[in-house]
């Protein structure tokens, strides 16, 4: 990997967003993910290589460290923000079709539940793994999920719930999706959700952390 991609990967892993970011202290005053990505493109490095060789490996390291409790949610969010600083330069290439992503991932917090931090975290990690995110927000009813699925054939679905009481709506959402579409992959997550519950409601996969979802999606792509 070229030096510039190594620098970019390091910035994302440690949450160095741009030159103005004071963190991490050892990179103070130096370019961050924002400037380095811009420079990499100017030097002719392909957007796909920036994604595949710098951003995805960096976010995989972040996800792995989070799973092992080496870092916690705030550091993961810092890394995700640095990744966003890089991604904004790549988005035009995704939109033009010059650079392809691994697939589409529709995500939303189920009806009745307004919690979105866990959902946002998973969305950012999956975006960092090279997927296009269609974020439906919070308190998402089944009709909204069905419309998004209809508009994005073949997308993988992610359902989030934080409350034991709104898990019931997760079950209903899976039922309605299964009743209307066959062969779709549905992932579920959230603090009260377990693998046992995932199997009970006929979802395809549950992970207690975002990296598990990324690993699962990587097997599909």
């Amino acid at each position, binding site marked *: 990997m070229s030096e510039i991609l190594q620098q970019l990967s390091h910035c994302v892993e440690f*949450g160095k967003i741009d030159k103005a970011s*004071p*963190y*991490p*202290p050892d990179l103070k005053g130096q370019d961050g993910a924002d400037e380095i990505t811009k420079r990499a493109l100017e030097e002719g490095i392909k957007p796909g290589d920036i994604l595949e060789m710098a951003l995805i490996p960096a976010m995989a390291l972040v996800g792995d460290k989070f799973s092992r409790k080496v870092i*916690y*949610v*705030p*550091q993961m*969010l*810092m890394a*995700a*923000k640095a990744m*966003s600083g890089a991604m904004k330069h790549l988005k035009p290439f995704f939109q033009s079709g010059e650079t392809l992503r691994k697939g589409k991932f529709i995500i939303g917090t189920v*009806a*009745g*539940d*307004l919690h*979105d*931090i866990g959902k*946002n*975290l998973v969305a*950012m990690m999956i975006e960092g793994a090279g997927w296009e995110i269609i974020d439906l927000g919070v*308190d998402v009813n089944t009709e909204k999920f069905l419309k998004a699925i209809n508009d994005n054939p073949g997308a993988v679905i992610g359902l989030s719930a*934080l*409350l*034991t*009481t*709104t898990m019931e709506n997760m079950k209903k959402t899976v039922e309605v999706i299964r009743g209307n579409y066959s062969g779709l992959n549905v992932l579920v997550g959230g*603090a*009260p*959700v*377990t693998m046992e519950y995932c199997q009970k409601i006929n979802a395809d996969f549950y992970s207690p952390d975002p990296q598990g979802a990324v690993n699962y999606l990587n097997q599909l792509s």
Partner: protein
Amino acid sequence: MIHKTFLFDFRDLNLTVEQIERAMGYPEGESHEPIYDIAARVMKEAEAICDLKAEYRIFENITFDPTNKKVTIGEVTFDIGKIIFGQIRKADSLALFTCTAGKGIGENSRRAMKESDLLEGYIYDVIGSEAVEAAADLMQNELEVEMSMEGRKITNRFSPGYCGWDVSQQHRLFSLLPGNFCGIKLTDSALMDPVKSISGIIGLGPDVRRMPYTCSLCDMKDCIYRRKG
């Protein structure tokens, strides 16, 4: 019917940045310099925007149904489940309470997230949660002192959505309180607005007790608070 209202200043809560770090998952004694600095800054901003208020109302016309683990206040019946029932069944009266950190902290959290600053939004969210729980602790301590002067005690506080009490019964709880109690409104799905609010029940009487920690009584093995504890 006794009804008390409390207004707290954010500084009354004595929240520390270390406490916020613990709530974000960092183990005791472990800190991360950038996160500490950001949390300290956000906490200063939270101090200015938190609007902490708590209220309780005490009801004496209560009846318990041991067979079905229900309690009735006036004409409103709650299916509180065996865990909460076991804790409050010896009460001679019940306090229904609400507590809020106000709209500002939740709005700042959402705004930061919308502007793609997930970290700041998350920290606002955590501070809001810690603040409302700390304010409820202060209210509960005041209630405990008040009761002790009459030779009576209090139980822990229990909220719909936890310990097997269905969150939808929040509507029943609010039906016993005056409109706009604590400035909180309920959504159709029984979530409170402002989001950084809590509500619930506390048992009162000479034969009840407040326990330091009740998770061992609970059969919700995946409850987020059990994991946190």
